[in-house]
């Protein structure tokens, strides 16, 4: 009994110590995110260390599940019970939805002190603002319209990296004749949509993309350009293999790595797979803008949205927002993620050739107006509209007899029904 009492006493003391300690320690932020894979988790840890170096506490609230669906469900239940975390990984128009619920807190002081308006391209800054105030901080920029290729397969087929859709089909034929699968793809709705938006961008250009997939303009959605884009998209199916149904994107990427397939249309997170396989960009694998989209950049930006909190926690939260945009974190995080920093003024010498090209195109398109949000990755429209468009795209892509005109019509209906 004595030893039991001692243990209890020890426990109580240490518990009391812990309680005192946490109340003594300045302020703490709780960050909900789904950066849980090896490299990502290490990258998120950099931010944690930066916070701790400034004397703030970091309570990690990682919810696994790549697409963040689980994390979002957890976040919703926390928000509903009136106890949201200080910051959460939320992106795109969802930031606006949370803003409308009145749950987000503003970051204008930090933004002004750090000069975010000058630092961030206006298109990116718009996504981060709700009602004129900054409510979120971008951590990286993914480019979605990439074409990846295995140079050995291209050599054997005697083709160059295609730069137009026509060249893509020609190259595809040559690769097939050489005995390889021309285009690696996984038959999942979001992958279908990823390929589709690149084709649409190549067919109609950035202005049309903006009208159709961002503004949901009915004429654009049901018009001739859309029909043409859908038909081209469907033709790409001939370049893919028959077994793609349900395949994960990284399996498709590994087909390119192994040399079973020639090319893949996928965002720059695919680079993580190439890097993990020990390949070097520009030598062992090639990257280029998706054919016909050299002057455009479909972005997918991860960001941390800040919830409305009070007192010390708010102070820590503001520090988090400042640190998240600082070069140290931006560089470490993006080297691990395969993306590029959200601030274009960083030294890119550590980054590989693909990332440098990505940044160059990012700056160029930001000035010239080719920077568009990715529909397939939830940057352009709300989740319900996005889902409805996914349904049409994937159904059309997989159906044998649906005409492109019918699909375009359904697209219009989908956009209307969801509004």
């Amino acid at each position, binding site marked *: 009994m004595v030893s039991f009492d001692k243990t209890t006493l020890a426990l109580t003391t240490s518990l009391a110590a812990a309680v005192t300690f946490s109340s003594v320690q300045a302020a703490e932020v709780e960050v909900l995110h789904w950066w849980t894979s090896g490299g990502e988790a290490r990258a998120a840890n950099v931010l944690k260390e930066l916070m701790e170096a400034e004397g703030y506490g970091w309570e990690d609230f990682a919810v696994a599940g790549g697409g963040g669906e689980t994390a979002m469900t957890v976040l919703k239940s926390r928000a509903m019970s009136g106890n949201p975390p200080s910051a959460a990984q939320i992106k795109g128009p969802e930031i606006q*939805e949370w803003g409308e619920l009145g749950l987000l807190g503003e970051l204008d002081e930090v933004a002004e002190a750090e000069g975010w308006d000058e630092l961030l391209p206006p298109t990116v800054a718009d996504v981060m603002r709700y009602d004129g105030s900054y409510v979120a901080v971008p951590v990286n920029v993914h480019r979605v319209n990439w074409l990846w290729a295995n140079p050995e397969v291209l050599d054997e087929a005697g083709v160059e990296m295609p730069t137009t859709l026509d060249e893509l089909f020609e190259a595809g034929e040559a690769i097939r004749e050489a005995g390889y699968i021309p285009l690696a793809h996984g038959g999942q709705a979001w992958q279908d949509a990823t390929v589709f938006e690149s084709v649409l961008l190549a067919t109609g250009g950035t202005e049309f993309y903006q009208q159709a997939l961002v503004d949901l303009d009915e004429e654009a959605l049901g018009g001739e350009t859309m029909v043409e884009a859908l038909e081209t998209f469907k033709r790409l199916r001939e370049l893919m293999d*028959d077994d793609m149904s349900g395949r994960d994107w990284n399996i498709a990427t590994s087909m390119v790595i192994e040399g079973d397939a020639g090319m893949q249309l996928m965002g720059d997170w695919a680079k993580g797979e190439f890097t993990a396989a020990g390949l070097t960009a520009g030598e062992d694998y090639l990257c280029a803008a998706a054919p016909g989209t050299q002057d455009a950049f479909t972005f997918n930006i991860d960001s941390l949205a800040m919830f409305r909190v009070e007192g010390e926690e708010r102070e820590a939260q503001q520090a988090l927002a400042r640190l998240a945009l600082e070069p140290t974190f931006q560089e470490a995080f993006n080297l691990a993620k395969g993306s590029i920093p959200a601030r274009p003024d960083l030294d890119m010498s550590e980054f590989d050739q693909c990332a440098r090209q990505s940044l160059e195109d990012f700056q160029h398109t930001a000035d010239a107006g080719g920077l568009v949000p990715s529909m397939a990755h939830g940057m352009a429209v709300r989740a*319900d509209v996005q889902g409805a468009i996914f349904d049409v795209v994937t159904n059309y892509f*997989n159906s*044998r007899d649906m005409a492109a005109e019918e699909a375009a019509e359904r697209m219009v209906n989908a956009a209307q029904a969801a509004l």
Partner: protein
Amino acid sequence: MSPSPSMARPADGPGARRSRAGTLHAWLPKLVLAPSVAISLFFVYGFMLWTFILSLTNSRMLPSYEFVGFAQYARLMTNDRWWVASSNLVVFGGLFVAICLVLGLLLAILLDQRIRQEGALRTVYLYPMALSFIVTGVVWKWLLNPGLGIQAMVRGWGFEEFRFDWLVDPDMAVYTLVIAAVWQASGFVMALFLAGLRGIDDSILKAAQLDGASLPRVYWRVVIPCLRPVVFSAVMILSHIAIKSFDLVVALTGGGPGYATDLPATFMYTHAFTRAQVGLGSASAMLMLGGVLAILIPYLYSELRSRRHG
């Protein structure tokens, strides 16, 4: 089940104490059961009610209480994907229940022929039930993948023209769900029927044989009619599995190709949790509940009626 008064009453002691103990005995079961009743009232029926209320609102990402009447149900009725999901459920549910019953009955009859090693065989057929649908789904996904599984194997044997690509064919993919689900559940139905067969009085069979009935005829006219209650329970259990099927679809086809193998359960999950349409998702959940009730109420009714008659 309540304890009888004579048992509750202590053999001796003052009257007041006796009655207090009696009260305690009478109330104890109710007291002990009360928390679980309260919990299930709240978490099952309360949430059902909440889902119904949500289905009448325009809730999007988070629940809101702006009522819009039956507008979400109307939207559901015009949603192409919902109809695909519902008709898939009819095809999948119908075939799954029918094939499981036929196959289960056949296996049970064959096992019932007093064969050697019956116990081992029974276990072999029953084991798939011990797997989760996720495991079944993944295994069949590999088996049915044209480039990896059965088709590739048969082609490897030299039959170059052999095709078995249902998994990637939007028109046929729903039947792959049936294959996997039947593989999983028919052994269980077999066990149910086997128990039923063992319960049939031998003398009935002998009497039929004495009357000169052939073996198939004995089974068709005598044994199978005797198994009617078993058929009934099997249909109930299988229909539940069919309506609630979610994990199998997620693991086997992911709802694809396109959304060709979507079922109401996956539809509900997608819309309520990933597409920020809580109202629409709730409406579909209520329709699913309606489907379950349509099966459950006749079942309860007949159960209660037969008990009253019994």
